[in-house]
């Protein structure tokens, strides 16, 4: 189970990084989002993989999942959304101002869609 989890995290991180190294803004944003999923899973797993742990404190509960990584990842998810939103809208703004969606700001010739 541990190996399976680690492999999944690794594959997600690799896919995310590959996309983050692309030259256009949208794949980069998608790649960063994917990377943040991988990072969240990684951080979450630092508390160990607990099956059937109790979510709330009660006398009948046998064992608990480590709550600290959960709390950290919970905020990380929300902040990750804010980051994704900011970067994708930055990408839109750049396209509007520079006329290209290349991450290096190159004015590459691209077929201009007609203004309507």
């Amino acid at each position, binding site marked *: 189970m541990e190996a399976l989890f680690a492999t*999944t995290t690794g*594959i997600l991180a690799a896919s995310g*990084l590959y*996309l983050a190294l692309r030259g256009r803004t949208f794949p980069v944003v*998608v790649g960063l989002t994917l990377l943040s999923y991988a990072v969240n899973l990684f951080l979450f797993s630092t508390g160990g993989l607990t099956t059937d742990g109790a979510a709330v404190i009660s006398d009948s509960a046998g064992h608990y999942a480590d709550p600290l990584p959960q709390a950290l990842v919970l905020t990380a998810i929300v902040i990750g959304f804010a980051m994704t939103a900011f970067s994708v809208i930055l990408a*839109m703004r750049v396209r509007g101002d520079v006329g290209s969606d290349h991450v290096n700001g190159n004015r590459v010739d691209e077929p201009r869609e007609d203004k309507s």
Partner: protein
Amino acid sequence: MSLLLIVLLPLLGSLLPLLSSNQRRHRCALLTAAMPFIALLVTLRETPGVLVGEVPRMAFSWVPALGLDLAFRLDGLSLLFVLLILGIGLLIILYARHYLSAADNMPRFYAYLMLFMTSMLGIVMADNLILLWMFWELTSLSSFLLIGFWSHQSAARKGARMALAVTGMGGLALLAGFILIGQIVGSFDMQTVLDSRDVILADPRYLPALLLVLLGAFTKSAQFPFQFWLPQAMAAPTPVSAFLHSATMVKAGVFLLARMHPALAGSQEWLYLVSLTGLVTMLFGAYFALIKLDLKTILAYSTVSHLGLITMLFGLNSQMAVVAGLFHILNHATFKAALFMTAGIVDHECGTRDIRKLKGLWRYMPMTTVLATITAASMAGFPLLNGFLSKEMMLAETLETPLLGGLAWLIPALATIGSILAAAYSLRYVRNTFFGGNRPRELEKTPHEAPFPLRLPVLVLAIMCIIIGLFPAFTATGLLTAAADASLTIPAPELHLSIWHGFNLPLLMSAIALTGGLIVYVLRQHLFTFHRQFPARDSLAIFEGAVQRLVGFTQWAIDTLENGSLQRYMLWVVISALVVSGMSLMGIEALKGELGVQEADPLLIVGAVITCFAGLATAFLHRRRLISLIMLSVVGLMASLIFARFSAPDLALTQLAVEVVTVILLMLALFFLPQKTPKESSASRIVRDVLLAAGFGGVVASLNYALLTRPLNSISDYFLEHSVSGGGGHNVVNVILVDFRGFDTLGEITVLCIAGIGIYKLLNRLRLFMPSSDSEGRPWSPDRYPMILASVSQSLLPMAFLVSVFIFLRGHNAPGGGFIAGLVTAVALILMYIAHGVEWAQQRLSFQYQPIAVAGVAIAALTGVGSWIFGYPFLTSAFGHFHIPLIGDVELATAMLFDLGVYLTVVGATLMILANLGKVTTSHRPSKQKEKA
């Protein structure tokens, strides 16, 4: 308290001249002089006590964590320097008043001068190593301002820059040396350090500490090979040169040698490093003083030479040599300040300082001639003047030194040669300028005697040269003994200063020096011819060249590393991350740790396969962006399921809600961006990236596996134990978020709010093309808002609100909380926008989202501040159980109020992002819609 006054009064004095205007020069000079004058009186009041061996000290704790105290002392050594700094400083103020032209900004000049004076006083009185260093750097900075005072001149700017670079670099070395000493001794307190010579000398860190401290002292005192900055600093106005380069700035280096003498001296390293450096510098400076052509440059090199002499004396590891060194500091300050001032007078009245153009000035300025002759004779070591006394002491000391063993005779021989050169350049300075030949020609203006106020400071100093020279026992012994006591920390050897010691070897050497000087002067043309064989070396050009090369190199480095390509930056970041984490992975003996692994069930395997497949598909199909996005959402949903599977319901809920808003956001963005990514990466680039990504994934997976199979000591047990008793909640994750780590959460919602506001600004005046069809030319569907979705969503809305209220309220004790509730509310509202369009939703949700997000952050922060009112630290939570009729027992905690802030921020920020982005889609459309209708 009076010690603090001595330092702080001149600091106050640096503000006073700024109150005066440039026109009212008398008032400006008087205002400036007042503060150092009072400081001088305060010092004189302390003097009798210090002379009998008292050491007034005072200390305030300043930055205890750094060992930095605001601590001052006034021992004999400090007193000698304080009197020099304040006394000569006052003369300089008077001199500068009449020297500066109407075009110069006098208040600014005086302000810089006073700042410099303060920092000098701070150095000599500091009772703490770090404090001493602080003032040391302050002298570098203020001397930069003074040397570059005529900032319109290129030479002044370059000279100031060079002085700052050299002395500033030395200052950093000094700091490192002081920190080492502080670590050896365990304190930065001056007295403790001075008392710990045995500890310091025995420590292996002694040599590096010594080298660093000496680097600081030698750069400041222009010792070989750092002497080059001092002649370049002559671009400063003459009063500055007379102050900085005779009595103060360059003396800081030799002061440091005297100050640290009890702690660092006594070793072979000290003996060789300090005395040989001093000897070389003395000869080097004397030689160049003889051949230079500019009056001030001649004096600058002679200063270098004399500083070398003093340094050599401190290096000799003999008590009497230290006394001689201190005496020469005093004497050199008097005659060199006076000589600089005479050079300034000549420059002022003749318009040039070129010794080739000047001659026979005695006809025009007889008084100045007399003063210059007296002081130059003192510099040459002529009997009956103060320079003679200390020079003879120096010669006597060189005879005693154990340096160089069997070759010890070299030292007095070389010292005599240095004295011969000193006599020669002193003679040349006086004779070529004031005598020799008839009248000067080619001068810009006809010279005339300087006004009396300009000559007065020179007169005072010349009289001092004579008085100390004639009555050394009466005038200097007390001060010198006190200074030597402080510098040796043991009673100094008894001092018998007198003009006549009988016929002895040092007297013979003095006589040889004077006659030899005369002979060298007469034969100087041969020396000049000899010197012309060497190619001229312009130290300024070399230094500037080095600076230019450094700038060029850094520019190249920046251009290479920071070329504006995000891909390049990412590459570097990833490679460094790979190297760092790969190295540490190689450091562990086996990937698998000691923990046993759990069995994987089939459901889990299926989930993992789907997740991996979706992740890979997102990457491989990235050029078809919509499909890539759908695959990304699959990964997100799977992540949510993974969280649920491993006992994290809060995370699962959050991930689910965030996934929804993320996909909506990216879909909206994709509407404005190209639907497909053009194929442009070269095959080699793709191979490189695939390899890099694979390596990265491998490292991440290995790290994760290594981590999962090792036992972990978590602090979570504390949270689990105290969640109910301390935070009043059964949902530990939520209690951590709103209570234990509430400050973190406050920071995070602030970031969220800032991101929302940033996006709002980015969308403002966004110029975008509105695509009317997709990439394949098919027009967007005219049926804009599906009827079924519209009706269902409307009826869903109250339910969704209810659910979010429920999730919010139960958050403290069951999975849920402000984050999740906020996301649910936001999703419900966004559904309205999607189902009915922005127009429709705008009419019904007419409020702005920015204030909601800001209010959320404010509520959360105020909840934290509220605990101050009750005398608790920021964000302390309180809770209690209340009985409400009909509803029953309800638990209320202040953490809930905090969670309300989180809720509002999440709703506000999410809607600020999505609703504003949605508005962009319609900014052109409403009018068209109406036309069609």
